């Protein structure tokens, strides 16, 4: 059962951390009061809409906006020519070009112009009045086609210095990781498997479309309200593109209706600001679902070649992967992470991964939960499964035999500290799911997954109010309950009840720089900063108590929410509670606060093992998920409900990726399924309960042992399901998604 499966391996006693308190934003979110990106208005606000390219690849010869500008009710029209002429780094220049196309439209849906008008009707008419003269060019959307000689070229000049001479100009970068000697290793194998795998692009699929409201005054001060995973990133990017001082632009993050990595960049915000500047009115922009699918997100599609050698007792002698990811029309597919993570779960003597970053005429990819890792794991974990089965070995035993442990040199370089992979495998093996009986046309699959987890720039400010309650200000939008986690860690550290702490997500004017909510970093990094901020406040409170008692601050210790005299010379003063110290703060030196700013290392890598049962209809190729169990190391589960929620949500996104989600392009390079009708994310009736087992192998890099938990759970499902389908139907699916027509064809071709 998902709700009572926690296995505590840590012995430290927590009072608040590890409990299942109620989230502070719960009431607002169940009553409809919570305000998301599209829920704000401003007096005199205009509606901003975007004109998008209907072509997959086209030179923009000219844009005539005069007719639109002349319409009553139209207050501003902008194109890329309206961006100030500022030299930007390559990354930001690409973001700008993606917000409004410059010389070329690079994909179906690429923004080419935008209008601000007094109503949605007028804005729509104005879009139709804009005349764009396109010269349509040949296009390419498949990663393998894009690197063939003669393929349409997106960017003259090709890739960076890592790309060998003579490579396709659509290759933007090459990455290589590993150690040992692959060929020598393969010679020692009893069996070598060489196989190729492909995955289709999938979208993050957040239910809330992108939305923002911009105002920009003639004094150069600007305000933005938007749904984002990182309002500091929004500030910095918009300021760079628009030539503003970062300090003059205040960005407030709304409640965010899902992101999964897809809201770690900007699409509308710089455009809305330009429209606001040009019209001198607030401008609100909200994407339609079709725009979200055509022009934001998705992750990369991939093509991966695997070579793995295995001895007959299941030891991997060598493992190699060559990965090609297309990340849409700009450099930056997550192939580097794919190449780094592919073999991260294993202790290998000979390992090599090579990654190629490829561009195609598709939307610029955005991060998607463990970006780059699921595709690599699909290939590697499928290959290991096939080898194990071919050798008559237990797939969990094979993984245990090769599992990375403390001290293992990872394929991507570092040596692991304490990690949890082995624990997830052993727990899986002992779980009743592993030995439960299966029926006809049913099969069971397992796979492992890994994610790095990140730290990143973080600021937290913790304030003690005069009545002895606590406010925490942090700078990371709360997607899945992190305000609850921060309040819990602050309460734990201060020794006060959870209910006495309220955490808010502060705007960019209130704190220093904060990295976006990504890399499963928030509970780790913001949690660490919250704990450190609480410790700073405790030191100050001990000082105040020392002052009252007339003793040295060093002779005061903090426990159970109060300052206590400690040590032989401290005297016998009665303890002073946090509230008592707060009440007299004005007389002992003024308000009390703690703050912490850091870029913490030591995020602590995370591993998971997933187990899934499927049933395959041999007459239609339909795959049904019958049972699913996630085993994952959380380091320390601060709020177990939300840890389980991350495990379950990631697993189900992986189920969608494995079975039915895909970007479908026509011959014309136009996206054919830009809606939730045919971009098929899992619905409630597709699924069983998703059982979870939380393991807690403390992360030495965090005061409470916390590891990020958000991303690893999307890494194993693709292969776990493919392995299960193979067991159920006898067919080995190497192309995702395993949609019914593909599975049926494989069964018929068997």
């Amino acid at each position, binding site marked *: 059962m998902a709700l009572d499966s926690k296995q505590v391996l840590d012995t430290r006693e927590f009072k608040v951390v590890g409990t299942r308190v109620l989230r502070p934003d719960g009431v607002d979110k169940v009553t409809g009061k919570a305000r998301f990106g599209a829920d704000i208005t401003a007096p005199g606000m205009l509606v901003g809409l975007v004109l998008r390219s209907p072509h997959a690849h086209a030179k923009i010869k000219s844009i005539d906006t005069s007719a639109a500008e002349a319409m009553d009710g139209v207050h501003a029209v902008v194109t890329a020519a309206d961006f100030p002429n500022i030299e930007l780094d390559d990354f930001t220049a690409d973001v700008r070009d993606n917000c409004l196309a410059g010389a070329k439209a690079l994909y179906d849906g690429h923004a080419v112009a935008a209008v601000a008008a007094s109503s949605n009707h007028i804005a729509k008419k104005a879009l139709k009045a804009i005349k764009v003269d396109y010269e349509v060019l040949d296009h390419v959307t498949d990663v393998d086609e894009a690197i063939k000689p003669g393929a349409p070229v997106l960017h003259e000049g090709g890739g960076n210095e890592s790309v060998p001479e003579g490579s396709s100009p659509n290759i933007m970068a090459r990455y290589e990781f590993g150690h040992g000697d692959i060929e020598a290793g393969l010679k020692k194998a009893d069996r070598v498997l060489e196989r190729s795998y492909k995955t289709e692009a999938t979208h993050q699929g957040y239910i809330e479309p992108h939305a923002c409201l911009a105002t920009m005054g003639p004094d150069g001060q600007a305000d933005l309200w938007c749904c984002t995973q990182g309002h500091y990133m929004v500030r910095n990017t918009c300021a760079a593109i628009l030539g503003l001082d970062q300090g003059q632009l205040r960005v407030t993050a709304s409640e965010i209706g899902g992101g999964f990595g897809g809201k770690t960049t900007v699409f509308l915000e710089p455009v809305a600001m330009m429209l606001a500047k040009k019209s001198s009115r607030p401008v609100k922009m909200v994407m339609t679902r079709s725009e979200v699918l055509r022009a934001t997100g998705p992750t990369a599609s991939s093509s991966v070649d695997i070579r793995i050698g295995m001895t007959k007792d299941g030891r991997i002698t060598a493992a190699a992967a060559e990965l090609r990811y297309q990340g849409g029309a700009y450099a930056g597919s997550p192939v580097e992470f794919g190449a780094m993570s592919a073999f991260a779960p294993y202790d290998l003597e000979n390992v090599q991964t090579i990654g190629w970053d490829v561009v195609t005429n598709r939307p610029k990819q955005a991060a998607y939960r463990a970006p780059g890792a699921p595709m690599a794991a699909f290939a590697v974990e499928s290959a290991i499964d096939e080898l194990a089965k071919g050798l008559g070995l237990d797939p969990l035993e094979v993984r245990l035999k090769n599992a990375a442990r403390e001290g293992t040199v990872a394929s991507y370089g570092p040596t692991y500290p304490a990690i949890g992979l082995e624990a997830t495998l052993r727990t899986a093996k002992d779980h009743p799911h592993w030995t439960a009986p299966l029926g006809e046309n049913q099969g069971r699959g397992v796979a492992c997954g890994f994610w790095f987890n990140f730290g990143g720039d973080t600021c937290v400010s913790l304030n003690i109010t005069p009545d002895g309650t606590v406010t925490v200000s942090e700078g990371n939008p709360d997607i899945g309950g992190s305000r609850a986690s921060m309040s819990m860690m602050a309460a734990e550290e201060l020794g006060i009840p959870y209910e006495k702490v309220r955490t808010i997500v502060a705007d960019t004017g209130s704190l220093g720089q904060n990295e976006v909510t990504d890399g499963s970093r928030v509970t780790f990094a913001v949690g660490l900063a919250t704990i450190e901020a609480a410790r700073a406040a405790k030191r100050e409170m001990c000082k105040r108590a020392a002052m009252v008692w007339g003793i040295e601050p060093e002779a005061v210790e903090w426990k159970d929410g109060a300052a206590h005299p400690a040590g032989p010379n401290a005297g016998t003063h009665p303890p002073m509670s946090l509230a008592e110290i707060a009440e007299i703060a004005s007389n002992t030196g003024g308000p009390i606060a703690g703050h912490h700013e850091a870029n913490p290392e030591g995020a602590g890598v995370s591993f998971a093992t997933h187990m899934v049962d499927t049933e395959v209809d041999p007459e239609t190729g339909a795959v049904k998920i019958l049972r699913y169990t996630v085993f994952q190391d959380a380091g320390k589960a601060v709020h177990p409900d939300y840890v389980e929620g991350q495990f379950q949500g990631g697993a189900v996104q992986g189920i969608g990726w494995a079975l039915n989600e895909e970007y479908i392009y026509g011959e014309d390079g136009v996206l054919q399924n830009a809606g939730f009708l045919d971009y098929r994310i899992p619905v409630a009736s597709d699924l069983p309960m998703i059982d979870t087992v939380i393991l807690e192998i403390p992360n030495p890099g965090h005061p409470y042992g916390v590891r990020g938990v958000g991303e690893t759970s999307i890494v194993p499902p693709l292969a776990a399901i493919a392995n299960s389908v193979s067991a159920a139907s006898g067919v080995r699916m190497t192309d995702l998604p395993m*949609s*019914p*027509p593909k599975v049926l064809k494989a069964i018929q071709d068997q």
Partner: protein
Amino acid sequence: MRYLAPATLEDATQMLGSDLGECRILAGGTDLLVRMRSGFAEPDSILDIKRIDGMRDITREDGGWRIGAAVSCAEMGEHAGLSADWPGVVEAAGLIGSTQIQGRCTVAGNLCNASPAADSVPALVAARAMARIAGPDGTRDVAVEHVPTGPGQTSLGKGEFVASIFLPARPENAGDAYLRFIPRTEMDIAVVGCGVSLTLDGDGTCTDAHVALGAVGPTVIIVEAGAKALVGTQVDDAALDALAAACSAAATPIADKRGTVEFRTHVSGVLAKRAAKIAASRAGA
């Protein structure tokens, strides 16, 4: 744009006879509003038929059932008599969209939207349902399969609309069923749909059958050969295999984002077989 909500059939036909420009009929709106939003439909006027007397009623008629054009599919599912007589039609209607869509969508709208993949249409065709069409010259009744003439096209004339659907009296020992294939378990458009209605005699021999396929041609395909494969048999495995072969042979699908030609052709037979089994068991086999 104008929004009109007449209260009587007379008012409606009179309005439709006046100059409304491009006028669309609004019943449940689950297709029309989607088309309007995406810019595929930009009507000058919308005529809402929900407030017309009788449009929301299910009534007994000649031993069968008359279903008003504004009756939602959810209301059909909640109607015990209709569900008992034509479970296949009610199931098919119940497969259109989510619970939310069910609260609004209608079989008349499903028919007039003329999507090749409409769920309720193969079941209505298999049940030999009739559409009553109201228009400037009064009303006329036609077999439902004659309403859609191609994707998005109908045989309705200017000022005409479907006012009701009539399901005939169910014969003794008869049963119907509808199955569709979709990639998920809900919320998808049919990749293949199949409606089967059949009648058995006292010893379980099939005396009459009607088989219709959806989503494998521009309009519903009535598979005469499939019906023939069943008539005179006990709906045994050999008959079902013959039915499947006939349906696969009759299917003329295209390949698109929802399925390949090969897949749709094969699954036409699979679903026909499965639907026929259910229909036969409902008929008392």
